């Protein structure tokens, strides 16, 4: 039931773009995206509800494809501060808030 994230790791140069995918074999109610730096708490990025909506702020955006049960996180013009591990947290039932996280995608941005 754990969602699958891809790729597992990615290395970028500053200014490059990246896409991180999160796929589920089970119908999703919502997808939450977090970034975590080593030894720190996960930081909330955005939440998407089923319905195929797309959200974004600044240079980070995300989409939710209900047909494919997949969400994608788009990072454009990456900055050094984007480095960290990105987790998608999936919610399968409404009204619980119980998140099942993917295994994480490690992103390293180099100067």
């Amino acid at each position, binding site marked *: 039931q754990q969602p699958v994230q891809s790729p597992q790791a990615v290395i970028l140069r500053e200014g490059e773009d990246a896409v991180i995918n999160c796929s589920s074999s089970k119908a999703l109610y919502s997808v939450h995206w977090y970034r975590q730096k080593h030894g720190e708490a996960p930081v909330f990025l955005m939440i998407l509800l089923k319905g195929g909506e797309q959200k974004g702020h600044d240079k980070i955006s995300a989409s939710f494809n209900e047909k494919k049960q997949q969400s994608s996180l788009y990072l454009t013009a990456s900055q050094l501060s984007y480095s960290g591990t990105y987790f998608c947290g999936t919610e399968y039932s*409404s009204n619980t*808030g*119980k998140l099942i996280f993917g295994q994480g995608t490690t992103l390293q941005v180099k100067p």
Partner: protein
Amino acid sequence: AAGVIQSPRHLIKEKRETATLKCYPIPRHDTVYWYQQGPGQDPQFLISFYEKMQSDKGSIPDRFSAQQFSDYHSELNMSSLELGDSALYFCASSLGRGAYEQYFGPGTRLTVT
């Protein structure tokens, strides 16, 4: 802006001892979640509370118990600690149950020796 507060930040215990972790949610947040994260792993959902009632349960061992109090703070009680319980324990809070943003606290690093 106020954030989630967790105490203690670090805790060292011996096998078979007990530990109590505390979580103070963001003001006005009525829902609290507990997650356990081992080294290099993703956060694992343990248990959640909404309006002081248990809302959902995940992979929480029977040796662990938790509750949410009238002021909405929550405590995770862990007994008969095992080496495998060593992990980062995060508390998160949200304004409502369900598809609401969950804000994580800084975590409590528990080391069992």
